[in-house]
């Protein structure tokens, strides 16, 4: 009843949510103390004389109780009112208002922030301390963002469920690894080469599966991913089997300077900065950022072109597409090829960054993670997918950092091992809460008036 009252007349009659939250938190504390005092507070153990003694763990108990109270406090004080407010807002008539500065320029601000990220990290953590943040968080996440954006073309736009995407990633990685180590070609030649090779394999995969859709397609692509991996393991003469290829050359900066300490034109020497591994990482960060942005740019452009529109129409209704004169065969093959090409780009970058590739890196789990990112983010939505990649990959990286959990669960607790558990939990929660992913709504590509970016045919004459 009180809730109903507070809905109709907030602020005046209902008690302050904070006061209520404090009260409820105290209750929760008492209850959890009662519950856990025997479970956590006391523990029976054997001492040196083999006698059963009671060990007390008041500290742990206090932490658990405090966490419970904090959780209850936050939920009652902030979360529940927020949910209610949202409900009330939804019930009201939607008021159209001019979006604020931040909201209007969100994209530009986000990109700007990404470019400033290494600068910020270096200035706070120092050159050496920045390594972890730029490499593990920056580069790692951006690789997955790029892979997921590439897969998004196949799965999100064209609606072709591909469970073997990692195969193209592998093709790209091995192309760079082999050609760079054997022939000594530069990354800047091999990047497009890897993309073309991956696209070629995309078409090779595309041909036999043209007639398949949905689950059948998924099974065949899954098999394709495994075939590529098994070939990499067993074709020892070329790929060195499961031992992998090591000593893959680093990327140079168009020949002007390199990142090998022994080279005369080493970056640190050219600029008189001394020796540090961080330069290469920061360089890689900007490179993958640019590659990811290229992927996004191409995707956005393609969506507004006939082929992109055809992909989206294909996802919705294949038969209708054909009856409108669209060659669905070519449409599917281009989707596979372009999606694979970006996988190949990411793969060659990956090989250059690791300096080592082995079939271990291209297992089915990788495909599943990339697909999970696309689905969680919202199929077809670039910002949604980027958010999902940050949450998923950043989340697993953060787990490594959570050493304080050892204080609670004991020194043998390794948070990384719970990675997949949390991954699964997060997926279930997101799917319950937002079944279409973080950004589930599709952005239309055509508008009659406004927006000059649509296509030239719209802007030729004014419409009333």
């Amino acid at each position, binding site marked *: 009843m009180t809730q109903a009252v507070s809905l109709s007349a907030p602020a005046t009659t209902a008690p302050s949510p904070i006061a209520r939250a404090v009260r409820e938190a105290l209750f929760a504390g008492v209850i959890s103390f009662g519950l856990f005092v025997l479970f956590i507070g006391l523990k029976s153990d054997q001492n040196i004389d083999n006698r059963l003694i009671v060990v007390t763990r008041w500290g742990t108990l206090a932490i658990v109780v405090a966490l419970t109270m904090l959780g209850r406090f936050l939920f009652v004080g902030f979360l529940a009112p927020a949910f209610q407010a949202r409900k009330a807002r939804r019930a009201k008539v939607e008021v159209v208002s001019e979006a604020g500065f931040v909201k209007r320029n969100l994209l530009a601000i986000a990109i700007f922030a990404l470019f400033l990220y290494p600068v910020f990290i270096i200035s706070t953590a120092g050159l050496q301390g920045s390594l972890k943040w730029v490499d593990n968080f920056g580069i790692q996440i951006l690789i997955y963002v790029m892979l997921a954006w590439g897969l998004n073309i196949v799965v999100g736009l064209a609606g072709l469920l591909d469970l073997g995407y990692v195969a193209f990633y592998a093709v790209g990685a091995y192309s760079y690894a082999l050609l760079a180590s054997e022939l000594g070609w530069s990354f800047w030649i091999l990047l497009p080469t890897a993309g073309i090779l991956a696209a070629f394999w995309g078409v090779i995969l595309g041909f036999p599966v043209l007639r398949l859709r949905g689950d059948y397609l998924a099974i065949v692509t899954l098999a394709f991913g495994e075939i590529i991996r098994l070939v990499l393991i067993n074709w020892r003469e070329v790929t060195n089997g499961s031992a992998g290829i090591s000593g893959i050359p680093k990327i140079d900066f168009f020949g002007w300077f390199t990142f090998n300490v022994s080279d005369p034109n080493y970056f640190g020497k050219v600029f008189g900065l001394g020796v540090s591994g961080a330069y290469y990482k920061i360089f890689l960060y900007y490179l993958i950022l640019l590659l990811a942005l290229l992927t996004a740019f191409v995707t956005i452009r393609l969506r507004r072109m006939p082929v992109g529109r055809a992909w989206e*129409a294909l996802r919705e*209704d294949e038969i209708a597409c054909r009856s409108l004169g669209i060659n*669905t065969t070519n449409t599917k093959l281009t989707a596979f090829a372009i999606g694979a090409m970006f996988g190949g780009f990411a793969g060659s970058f990956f090989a250059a960054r690791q300096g080592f590739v082995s079939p271990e890196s291209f297992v089915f789990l990788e495909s599943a993670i990339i697909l999970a990112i696309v689905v969680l983010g919202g199929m077809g939505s670039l910002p949604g997918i980027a958010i999902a990649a940050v949450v998923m990959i950043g989340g697993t990286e953060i787990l490594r950092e959570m050493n304080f959990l050892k204080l609670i669960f004991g020194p043998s607790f390794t948070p990384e091992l719970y990675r997949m558990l949390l991954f699964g939990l997060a997926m279930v929660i997101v799917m319950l809460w937002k079944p279409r992913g973080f950004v589930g709504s599709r952005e*239309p590509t055509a508008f*009659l008036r406004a927006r000059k970016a649509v296509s030239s045919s719209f802007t030729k004459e004014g419409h009333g």
Partner: protein
Amino acid sequence: MAPNALLDVRNVETYYGNIRALNGVDVSVNQGEIVALIGANGAGKSTLMMTIFGSPRARSGQIVFDGTDITQMPTHEIARLRIAQSPEGRRIFPRMTVLENLQMGASLDKLKFFDEDVEKVFTLFPRLKERINQRGGTLSGGEQQMLSIGRALMARPRLLLLDEPSLGLAPLIVKGIFDAIRELNRTQGLTVFLVEQNAFGALKLATRGYVMVNGSVTMSGTGKDLLADPEVRAAYLEGGRH
């Protein structure tokens, strides 16, 4: 079997697996006509429509469009000969907006005539203009039908195939859609081949009509004659003997 027909379906047989759905169908549509094909559920009307579009393919017989044998052509190439279709169940793109759906219809010309044509469609169906940025899936049934026909028209068709445009719609909307078809035929000389269960409305609209029973054409004649025919009246217009 008219020698100069725009669309000529000659003795076509179509199978679903081993089940014969069409046994030797002959239908022709002349330039500038509205031809209606009526028949009960499961008579093979939609199958004929889909066979003309090459999916499923006719196992025997021949389909000729404007002198070109299209029997073995893939669907998208048939569409490129400017045969447009508003298929059974409308099949609009539900997550795309009205405007995007119409864009898809204009794929053949790469949107060259889009501005011009989209205005024509909006004149014909002003309701679509009101819904222009709305997703296809959120339209009402009648609006979806309008969109489906509008999308077909965006391809600048020489022959428009309509599969049950009245299906599941209120009588007033059906009348509006039939009026629109008549209007298109009168002002632009568009040739229309129409499949309908709503025999009365379809035959009133049509220049000529065919009656289909169990995969064969049993009767044909002008729309007026068929409407007056006692057997047609009994079977399709007055509750029926079947």
